[in-house]
């Protein structure tokens, strides 16, 4: 024997050509994989349409940053870095694996272009890649199998633990890495013994170590190991390929598509049905998601793509307070149902009403639509649109809790969830002390450049009306010519839309849009992030909308507003990011800049801030909903602020103020902690 015999020329027992096996294995593997994929795609074909071929530029960017760049992974440092190693290793080794399959029928096959220097460089890199992947797999397996981080736990009501599958797959990947390296090392050791050829190998790589170990092994052992490791790799490779679509490792295949098709616009809600314009909504037979097939194909792809990493639920405030909602299991339960209703062989089952089959009504109402889950998901899986679609389905079926029916009916009759009279919407402006300082124009008759959109809670809630007055005083001081719509203003409907009452939202939107356009204003300002979000992201064809914090930041920059030194320099302030200002609209810096413009104000940061801000309990209709929960989100938030050393929580949202004020009382922190709206703090410091 002058050189080792490759799998393409090797004969088992001296007669049976191994090439036959390495020819048949890929055929069986690819054939089976194609069949499984065809069955997996079946539900997506029956799904509702989804428009995901727009904004290709942004989608390509997501592909580069979120998929290839794995930008969201290091948000969980250890797991993220391990994943980056394994992911990069997979990409690098995919080339090697492909050529290995062909080596089985053609000895010494080299992919075109990989013969010379490029091949040498590639080999060097892939040897390290395999090594790092193996190390990452071992650490990951120890982490999952022994340390068992809490976020992977599966509560009993959601089914069985998934650790077994996770560790099994890590074992498969390790087997691939070891067999690939052994295949190469056995050949190099053989060549070295026989011809004294010294190959350059990446030092300390797996191949390098194996070569060292095999340096003096008998030639027949090396030959046997060479063939054995080849087929171990080949069989494992095709087994893994067919195993992927059967569980949480489907993401290895689907992630690239899922990230490409992920949400590119923030703060908005999908239309009831893609391709159906608002004026055609009445023609639809049914609204929202009632059965599995009512989801869009992208939402089904989301279900397939979940890697079960648990980051969504780890960030979910509803999950944190013990509400019956864990976003991770919204996905996992739907995937299990897809696997069950669309089995790999046999008949496709008819699906039932989802809120009776796999979800509960309370589960779906528990979401505050804060968006923490979506912000976190490394795979771009969406939740808000699914929640809204499921709620649309429930509303259409009449499945709305009594606690929400009252405010919804009041919104229908009076345009606000409290059922207060329309004519009292501007009563906050008639306060004696305030009206002596500031006369607010009513744009039903008068004219102004800017509309101050007050929205329901700020108009009607005794305590929150203060935000309206402070906002007006700030606008006046900043020289903004503004007015309000008064009784013509209706609730912005941000939550009406998000709670699935589409037609009521359409109605409110139409009334507001008409009133706003009629008023002839050139811009809109609001102090309510929920209204800001609705007007900016849900409404169409309105003048530009700004949040009061943006206006103040601008006016300070231009010198039109000036702030006094801090009046309570002993206090420690912390800014809480409202979900609909921060996460949904990216306004993180302006409020902070304004706070920092107050001389002598001590400001600390919450650990969970900016895009990881923790929802204080939700706004709009969520204030009326009576959830099952162990504690309040606001209480957790107040405790976080206390941990950060703050004594004043500044927020820029009326709902945050209500929730946090209540939570301070519930947490028993009255006297040591206070909540303050951004407008109140600023108005106190107007120079």
């Amino acid at each position, binding site marked *: 024997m002058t050189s080792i015999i490759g799998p393409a020329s090797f004969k088992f027992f001296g007669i049976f050509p191994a090439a036959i096996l390495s020819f048949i294995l890929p055929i069986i593997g690819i054939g089976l994989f194609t069949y499984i994929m065809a069955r997996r795609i079946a539900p997506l074909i029956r799904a509702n349409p989804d428009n995901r071929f727009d904004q290709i530029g942004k989608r390509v960017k997501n592909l580069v940053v979120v998929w290839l760049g794995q930008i969201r992974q290091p948000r969980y440092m250890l797991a993220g870095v391990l994943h980056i190693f394994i992911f990069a290793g997979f990409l690098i080794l995919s080339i090697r694996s492909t050529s290995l399959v062909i080596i089985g029928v053609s000895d010494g096959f080299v992919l075109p272009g990989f013969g010379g220097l490029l091949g040498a460089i590639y080999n060097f890199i892939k040897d390290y890649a395999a090594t790092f992947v193996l190390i990452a797999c071992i650490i990951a397996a120890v982490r999952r199998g022994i340390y068992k981080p809490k976020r992977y736990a599966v509560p009993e009501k959601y089914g069985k633990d998934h650790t077994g599958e996770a560790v099994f797959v890590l074992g498969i990947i390790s087997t691939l890495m070891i067999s690939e390296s052994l295949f190469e090392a056995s050949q190099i050791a053989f060549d070295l013994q026989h011809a004294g050829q010294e190959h350059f190998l990446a030092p300390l790589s797996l191949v390098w170590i194996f070569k060292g170990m095999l340096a003096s092994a008998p030639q027949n052992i090396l030959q046997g190991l060479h063939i054995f490791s080849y087929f171990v790799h080949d069989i494992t490779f095709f087994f893994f390929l067919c195993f992927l679509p059967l569980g949480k490792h489907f993401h290895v295949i689907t992630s690239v598509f899922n990230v490409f098709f992920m949400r590119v616009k923030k703060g908005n809600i999908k239309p009831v049905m893609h391709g159906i314009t608002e004026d055609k909504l009445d023609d639809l037979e049914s609204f929202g998601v009632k059965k599995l097939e009512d989801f869009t194909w992208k939402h089904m792809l989301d279900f397939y793509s979940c890697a079960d990493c648990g980051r969504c639920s780890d960030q979910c405030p509803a999950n944190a307070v013990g509400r019956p909602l864990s976003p991770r299991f919204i996905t996992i339960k739907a995937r299990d149902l897809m696997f069950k209703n669309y089995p790999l062989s046999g008949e496709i089952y008819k699906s039932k009403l989802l809120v009776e089959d796999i979800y509960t009504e309370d589960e779906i109402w528990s979401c505050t639509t804060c968006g923490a889950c979506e912000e976190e998901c490394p795979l771009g899986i969406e939740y808000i649109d699914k929640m809204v679609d499921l709620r649309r389905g429930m509303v259409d079926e009449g499945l709305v809790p009594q606690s929400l029916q009252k405010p919804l009916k009041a919104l229908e009759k009076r345009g606000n969830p409290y059922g207060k009279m329309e004519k009292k919407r501007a009563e906050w402006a008639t306060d004696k002390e305030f009206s002596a300082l500031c006369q607010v124009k009513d744009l039903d008759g008068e004219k102004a450049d800017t509309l101050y959109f007050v929205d329901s809670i700020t108009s009607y809630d005794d305590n929150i009306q203060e935000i309206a007055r402070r906002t007006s005083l700030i606008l006046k001081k900043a020289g903004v010519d503004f007015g309000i719509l008064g009784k013509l203003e209706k609730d912005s409907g941000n939550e009406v839309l998000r709670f699935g009452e589409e*037609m009521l939202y359409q109605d409110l939107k139409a009334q507001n849009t008409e009133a706003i356009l009629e008023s002839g204003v050139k811009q809109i300002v609001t102090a309510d992030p929920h209204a800001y979000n609705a007007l900016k992201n849900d409404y169409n064809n309105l003048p530009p909308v700004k949040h009061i914090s943006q206006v103040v930041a601008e006016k300070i920059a231009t010198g039109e507003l000036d702030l006094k030194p801090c009046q309570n320099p002993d206090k420690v302030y912390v800014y809480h990011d409202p979900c609909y200002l921060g996460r949904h609209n990216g306004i993180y810096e302006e409020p902070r800049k304004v706070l920092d413009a107050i001389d002598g104000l001590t400001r600390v940061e919450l650990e969970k801030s900016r895009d990881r801000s923790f929802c204080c309990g939700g706004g709009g209709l969520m204030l009326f909903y009576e959830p099952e929960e162990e504690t309040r989100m606001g209480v957790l938030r107040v405790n976080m602020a206390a941990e950060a050393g703050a004594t004043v929580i500044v927020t820029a949202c009326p709902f945050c103020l209500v929730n946090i004020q209540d939570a301070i009382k519930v947490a028993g922190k009255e006297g040591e902690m206070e909540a303050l709206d951004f407008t109140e703090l600023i108005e106190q410091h107007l120079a």
Partner: protein
Amino acid sequence: MEILVCVKRVPDTAENEFELNSAGNDLDRDDLVYSVNEWDNYAVEEAIQIVDKVGGNVTVITVGDDESEEVLRREMAMGANNGILLSDDAFEGSDGRGIAGILAAEVKKGSYDLILTGAQADEGAGQIGGMLAAMLEIPYASLVNKIQVGDGSIIVGREIEGGNQEMNEIGLPCVLSIQTGINEPRYVGIRGIRKVASVDIPVKAASDLGIDVNTVGEAGAKTKRVDYFVPDTGEGAEMLEGSTDEIIEKLIEKLKAKGGL
């Protein structure tokens, strides 16, 4: 089972601030919003649930003007199959007995196994169900909070003073007045109402029902409202005034002073 549910359009207590009119004999109704009487809504939901189980039809009926059609549509959006509007200028000013008589005239033209009313409506008299049953000479159970449908008869539950529960077997046809809490009425959105917007609702006048106009309306009313007012604050009662916070503070002070806290 053929079920008839009598409903009424009333000023919505949740969405209104009630004030007396200048004449002082009624509410100021200019700025009011109306909806279906809450008890009636539970009755319709119950009827729909019964029909879902055993089959049949739910018909909703009301005595009122053109605007009352809106509450019939809302109940039809919930799932009632038919609506009937009994409307005639001659009906205006009817007392309870008059309304029951008008309803009875229409009931006799149909063939209903079960007739439901709300336990009471905005005026709190709670008299229609009983009168209707008497006029039709069929059994009646009031304040019903449970219904079990059997063969030829039904079992109805009534909550008794002190929280006790009574169960009665009652023969069909019968009239039941329904208490709130018997079920959780489903939500009706704008979309649901629009879906039934073009369904035909027959309107029947006194002549269609064969009613002598002198027996109904103001002319036939044996009870007449002679006054309507907000009672004077009596001895021992005190109205706290101010903003919500101030009222709460005063209340706490008072409770503390009297040893209640």
